[in-house]
C-alpha cells in the first residue's frame, strides 16, 4: 500500500450537523410500522435458490416428467404385447385341446353331449345357408349365360339397329384393318429374311422353317383375313396348314431386289427381296409379275 492510499484511507469524515439524526428518524416511513422488537417480517423478500433457478428447473422438471411418462408407457406397451402373445398362444392351445376333446367326446358319447349337438345344428344351419346362396348364384349365372347366348345369336344375325350402309362401312373398315395387318406381317417376314440372308450367305432360306429363329411368332405367317386357317400359337404346333402366304423366294440371292419372296393369295400383296411390300399387285395387276427361269419378279 502506498502512502497515498494510506492517507486516503485515513481521510477524516465530515461530522454530520446536529439534529440530522433526529430529522432522519422523524422522516422514517416504514411500510408497516409495528411495535419495536419484531424481527421476522413476513414481507421481507428473501429470494431463495428456487426463485433464481425456477426458469431452468421448471422446463427440466417437465422434460423429466415427460421422459418418465414415455418410459412407463413404453414399458406398459411391452408388457401388454407380451401378455397378448401369451394369451393368443394359450388360446390356440385351448382351441386345439377343445377340438381334440370335442372330437373324442363325439366319438365316445355323441348323444350325451348337448353342446356338441348345438354345434352340429349351427354348422348344419350355416351349410344350408351356404347351399342357398350358391343356388342363387348358379341361377344368376345361368341367366347371364342365356343372355349371352341370345346376344351372340343376335350378333350372328345382324344387329337390327344398324343400317346396311353402316354394316358395309364396318365391313370395309374391318377389311382395311385386316389388309394393313397382312402388310405388316409381310414387312416383318421381309426383315426376318434379311436377317437370315446376313447370317447365311446372302441368300433367302430354302424353307420357311429354317428361319423360325428370325421370326418372333408363327402368327406372322397367318393373314387375318384368312378364314380357312388358324394361326399357330407356337412353333411346336406349327404346320403348313397354319401358313396363309405362299413362299416363292426360296434360295433367292439378295442382289435381286425385285424378286418376289411372299405372296398373300387373299389380298394379292407381295413381299419383294428388297424388303418392300407391294399392296394388291398380285390381285389387281397380275401382269406386273413376270416369271423368269422359274422365279417370280415384279416388273418395274
Amino acid at each position, binding site marked *: 500500500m*502506498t*502512502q*497515498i*492510499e494510506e*492517507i*486516503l*484511507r485515513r*481521510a*477524516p*469524515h*465530515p*461530522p*454530520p*450537523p446536529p439534529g*440530522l*439524526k433526529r*430529522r*432522519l*428518524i422523524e*422522516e*422514517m*416511513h*416504514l*411500510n*408497516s*410500522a*409495528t*411495535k*419495536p*422488537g*419484531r*424481527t*421476522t*417480517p*413476513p*414481507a*421481507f*423478500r*428473501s*429470494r431463495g435458490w428456487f426463485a433464481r433457478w425456477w426458469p431452468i428447473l421448471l422446463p427440466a422438471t417437465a422434460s423429466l416428467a415427460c421422459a418418465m411418462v414415455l418410459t412407463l408407457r413404453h414399458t406398459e406397451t411391452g408388457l401388454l404385447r407380451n401378455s397378448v402373445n401369451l394369451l393368443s398362444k394359450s388360446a390356440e392351445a385351448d382351441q386345439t385341446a377343445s377340438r381334440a376333446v370335442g372330437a373324442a367326446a363325439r366319438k365316445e358319447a355323441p348323444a350325451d353331449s348337448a353342446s356338441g349337438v348345438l354345434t352340429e345344428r349351427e354348422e348344419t344351419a350355416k351349410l344350408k345357408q351356404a347351399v342357398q346362396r350358391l343356388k342363387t348364384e348358379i341361377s344368376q349365372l345361368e341367366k347371364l349365360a342365356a343372355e349371352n347366348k341370345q346376344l351372340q345369336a343376335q350378333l350372328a344375325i345382324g344387329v337390327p339397329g344398324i343400317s346396311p350402309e353402316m354394316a358395309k362401312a364396318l365391313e370395309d373398315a374391318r377389311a382395311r384393318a385386316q389388309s394393313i395387318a397382312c402388310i405388316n406381317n409381310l414387312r416383318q417376314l421381309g426383315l426376318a429374311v434379311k436377317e437370315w440372308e446376313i447370317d447365311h450367305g446372302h441368300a433367302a432360306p430354302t424353307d420357311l422353317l429354317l428361319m423360325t429363329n428370325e421370326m418372333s411368332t408363327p402368327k406372322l405367317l397367318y393373314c387375318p383375313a384368312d378364314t380357312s386357317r388358324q394361326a399357330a400359337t407356337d412353333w411346336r404346333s406349327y404346320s403348313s396348314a397354319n401358313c396363309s402366304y405362299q413362299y416363292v423366294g426360296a434360295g433367292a440371292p439378295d442382289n435381286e431386289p425385285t424378286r418376289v419372296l411372299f405372296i398373300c393369295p387373299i389380298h394379292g400383296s407381295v413381299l419383294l427381296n428388297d424388303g418392300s411390300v407391294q399392296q394388291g399387285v398380285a390381285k389387281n395387276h397380275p401382269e406386273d409379275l413376270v416369271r423368269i427361269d422359274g422365279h417370280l419378279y415384279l416388273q418395274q
Partner: protein
Amino acid sequence: METDANQLARAACGGDTAAGGQLIELYYRRIYAFLRRLAGNDADAADLTQRTFGRIWKVLPSFEGRSSVACWMHGIAYHVYIDWRRASSRMESAPDRWWLARADGGVAPDEAAAQNDLRANLYAAVDGLEPDVHETVHLHYYQGLTLQETADALCVATSTVKYRLRSALAQLQRKLASDPMLLKTSTIPGTI
C-alpha cells in the same frame, strides 16, 4: 456487524421502527460524510442524506440481501447524488476547502503542519479528479467499501473500479510530484 445490519434491515422491512432507528444510527454518519464530500457543503449534504434515507425506506422491501447493507445504502446515496446533480445542472462537483480547515494533531507542530498540508492538498487533488474517478476513490478509500462493493454501488464492473483507482493514484502521484510546494512536504515514494 453486517449480519446485524441485515437483521435490522429485515426487521425494518417488517415495520420495526426501532430497527430502522438503529440502521440510521449505524450508517447516517458514513452516508452524510460521503455526500458531504461530493456535494461540497453542509446544507446540500444534509438534504441529500435525508433524501437518501427516504429512498432507502421506500425501496427497503426490494432489498434482496445479495450485497451488504452498507454497499446497498451507498449505491442509493450515489444515485441520489447523481439525480440531484443532474437536477441542479451541476456537471462538475464543487468541493469546498473543508480539507484545508481540517487539522490533525498528535505530532510535532512543524511536522504536523507539513502532514496537514500534504493531506489537505491530496484530498483537494482527489476532488479535482474526474467525477467518475473521484467518486470511486470516495467509495473505496474514504468510505471503506471493498472493490466489489464499490463496483456494486456504482453499478460498474470490478475491473472498471480497479482501472479507475489505478488511474486516480497515478494522477495524484503526478500532481503531487509536479507541485514544488507539495514536494517540499511530501514523503510519497516515486512509484505507486
